[in-house]
């Protein structure tokens, strides 16, 4: 039986859907409950960054109670980013959509959506996870400098899209990917592997001069990025180790770190 979207709270305007969903989770709201806002005045990106979320986009949060180790919660990011890619692929097959590992979605190299997981822990016990998604569906104008790095589905296909239509497809994909994330993560990795934006690209990982450069070879069984360094050594990149910036080498070393 499907759980995602069985209960939906819609608000024309919210500070942040994540905060409202978090409040509801604390009240014991069931798994799969969705909180949607027509617009967010204080949408949250990674590290507390502001997420541009005006009317026309799909801004929502899902309440989850995953039964996986805390150290594996990053899987949910990848599952959700994969679900966004597959939804776009199925509805608009002409668009070239990719995952910017681990949690952003790109169309032709421009950001169209992002995913952010917030977990609430009680000691070493997981209380709940709030999965926040932001998809630029019908956004026409982006403030500078976002206009250079972001796009929307309507801009790419040249027409408006019904938000409820896209949401219904996305929730179905999200639930399927979430189940894979819990019970068959290796299949999920196989599915998203061809859509990795950085696959086969030379990247620099790290801060300042301490960074390491290498060719992206794929993901390991836990979803960590595998780099092949110049020396031929393979190196696992785990975002938990430290703050990491990914830079595609060439084209002025463009910063491609995910997040708003």
């Amino acid at each position, binding site marked *: 039986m499907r759980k995602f979207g069985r209960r939906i709270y819609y608000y024309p305007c919210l500070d942040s859907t994540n905060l409202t969903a978090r409040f509801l989770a*604390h009240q014991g709201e069931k798994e799969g409950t969705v909180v949607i806002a027509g617009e967010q005045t204080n949408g*949250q990106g*990674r*590290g*507390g*960054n502001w997420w541009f979320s005006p009317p026309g986009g799909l801004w929502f949060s899902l309440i989850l109670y995953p039964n996986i180790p*805390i*150290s594996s*919660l*990053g899987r*949910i*990011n990848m599952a959700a980013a994969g679900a966004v890619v597959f939804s776009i692929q199925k509805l608009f097959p002409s668009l070239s959509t990719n995952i910017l590992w*681990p*949690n952003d979605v790109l169309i032709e190299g421009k950001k169209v959506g992002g995913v*952010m*997981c*917030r*977990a*609430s*822990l*009680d*000691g*070493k016990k997981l*209380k709940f*996870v709030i999965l926040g998604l932001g998809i630029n569906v019908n956004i026409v104008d982006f403030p500078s400098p976002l206009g250079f790095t972001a796009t929307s589905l309507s801009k790419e296909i040249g027409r408006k899209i019904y938000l409820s239509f896209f949401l219904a497809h996305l929730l179905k994909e999200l639930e399927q990917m979430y189940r894979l994330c819990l019970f068959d993560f290796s299949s999920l990795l196989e599915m998203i592997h061809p859509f990795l934006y950085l696959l086969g690209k030379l990247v620099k990982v790290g801060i300042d001069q301490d960074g390491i450069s290498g060719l992206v070879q794929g993901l390991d069984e836990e*979803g*960590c990025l595998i780099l092949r360094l110049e020396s031929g050594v393979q190196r696992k990149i*785990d*975002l*938990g*180790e*430290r*703050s990491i910036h990914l830079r595609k080498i060439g084209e002025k070393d463009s910063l491609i770190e*995910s*997040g708003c």
Partner: protein
Amino acid sequence: MDLKILQKIIEIFEASSLWELEIEEKGTRFHLSKKRGKEPLFPQQLPSSPKQSEEKKVLEIEGEKKKLTVVRSPLVGTVYRALSPEDKPLVKARDKVVVGQTLCVIEAMKVMNEITSEVNGRIKDILIKNGQPVEYDQELFLIKEH
């Protein structure tokens, strides 16, 4: 453990205000306890060498720690004391905290993990800095329970 050192620890323990002390070294555990309501055997100051007073200090700190709740990191990641770079820290030293209150956020694999207080009390000490990498089980906060 060397018997002489153990003897010294017992003497210091008896002279201290501690009621219980547990020491574990190389798989051997020593548990010292006093009967409640009974005055310490040696209430007077022990004639102490510098080394002895150092040992006593360590024991007192350990003893004090026992009365505190230690909040530890449940995972490897980067710790943030505020929800965003512009925000004020979630908690400061001497702040009152309640059960469920968010103390800090640890980012790992781009998941923001909110670490919450399991007790009501007051922040005694903050053992991490904003943006610092943390290891599994690393001590983050000391909370004096109410």
